[in-house]
């Protein structure tokens, strides 16, 4: 018998509690991400402790540290990029809405029912086409 990797999926299924199982799945993802955030913090704490032990850092030096104005500006830009990418999914809707207004600036607003009917044919919208052309 050669060696097989250990099976990691559960036989007998996994219970779901919310009306939509997607909520349970997303909750699981959030917790796994939480675990990774914590793991980074522990790693950073280890790094800091090693630096202090080796004399590269004084105890509490990071907490008392302030970035220079140049460093602060660079970080601020990176922070904005990070936040933008975090909420990118919401931005898609905004861009689509703006694109619609730009294409038909003179047209009066469509009635709600018509807009609803338009949703299923989104696959053929200019947004998808734009995405394809970017590839």
């Amino acid at each position, binding site marked *: 018998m050669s060696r097989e990797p*250990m099976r*990691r999926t559960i036989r007998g299924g996994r219970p*779901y509690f*919310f009306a939509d199982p997607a909520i*349970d799945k997303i*909750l*699981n993802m959030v917790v*796994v991400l939480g*675990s990774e955030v914590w*793991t980074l913090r522990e790693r950073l704490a280890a790094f800091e402790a090693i630096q202090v032990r080796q004399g590269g850092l004084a105890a509490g030096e990071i907490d008392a540290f302030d970035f220079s104005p140049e460093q602060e500006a660079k970080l601020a830009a990176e922070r904005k990029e990070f936040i933008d990418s975090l909420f990118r999914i919401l931005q898609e809707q905004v861009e689509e809405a703006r694109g619609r207004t730009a294409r038909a600036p003179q047209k009066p607003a469509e009635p709600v029912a018509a807009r609803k009917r338009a949703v299923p044919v989104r696959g053929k919208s200019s947004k998808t086409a734009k995405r394809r052309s970017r590839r």
Partner: protein
Amino acid sequence: MLELKHELKLDKSRDEKARMNFVSGLRAHVLNDMASGMRAVYDAEVEPGFRRAAGRAPANGPEVHKAIKPNEYFKFYSSLRVTAQDMVWQSVFPPLERNRTQLKDRAAKLSRRKKLGSLTLKEGFEVPRYVSAIDVHLMAGNYDGEYEAEDLAAGALYDNGLAVFSFGLMGQNLDDIGQSIAGFIRLKFPQLKPAKILDLGCTIGHNTGSWKDQFPQAEVHGIDVAAPCLRYAHARAQAQGRAIHFHQMNAEQLEFPDASFDVVFSSMFLHEVPKKGIEKIIAEAYRVLKPGGLMLHMELPPNGQLSPYEAFYLDWDSAYNNEPFYKPFRDLDPVSVCAKAGFKSKNFLQFVIPSVGWYGEKVWSEAATRPPEVDSDKTGRLTDGIMWYCFGAWK
């Protein structure tokens, strides 16, 4: 995170340890903080709602379960508890998979050392369906999963997983149940001088060893159906310097002669067996006990002795943690189960024993003089202030 204290301990990276720490912390949060939050939500919202509709309080665990199921807090508690349970095992797989060769080498080295106990496995042994067909408590591969010859990885998964799962409440060597109970029995019954002790469904022997510690003169045996756990148990006992004899055997059909043991013990075992199997196991315990011998099972407390809410709380595992036999077991009346196997009702006994690790030696030893209190929100719950329930009978 609780680090294993023996030579089979896995080598883990800083990040792997941190993930395990996180899961232990998550479990403590769900089982302590959120569990008490859920009780508050039940008292303030769910129970009054039930009363308004039914004109009375819920009468049993299933009624509480039905009433609380639509509640959002219950859903978050449950979903997070399943997530945490899954993450326990998932946190062990990567270091375990990486260390499988090293683990086997260490085990082989340990068994070459002066043999203290023994290991007896059976070619072609038939593992019962209630073990081979499900992944109990969401542990992928279960106790018996084998992925190569002479495999002991499932034992390591259980040992390391238990360390994460228990967040310290099962003792530094995961033997708080064994130490609390074997020690309690020694204090409570000083006349008992067992020559032979048997532990049923011993898995990795983490609670078997305590009997050897408390009764060093006794010959101690442990049986289980899962070969990888037994191989690991043997190596683990060798590492801990304990003489234990491990056998691959089904507790429903013991291969020991009649009247050959002074104590027959099990811990957290019966609730993983269907009712028919439990009856056979108790009958077999009766058969192999010497007259005057003691049978003792550490278990979750029976539903008949719990309030409806506590019954619901413990039954959660049966509904959502791949423990299909957990509630049926807890619905049984322990006195009649023992009587059916031949034990006289007057010889029945039960205890609630404070965890020696949590309460310390003083409170724990004083409990040997007190009558049992079963219905407590600490009994059988992995929570701050845990108490262990056990029942059994003298033959």
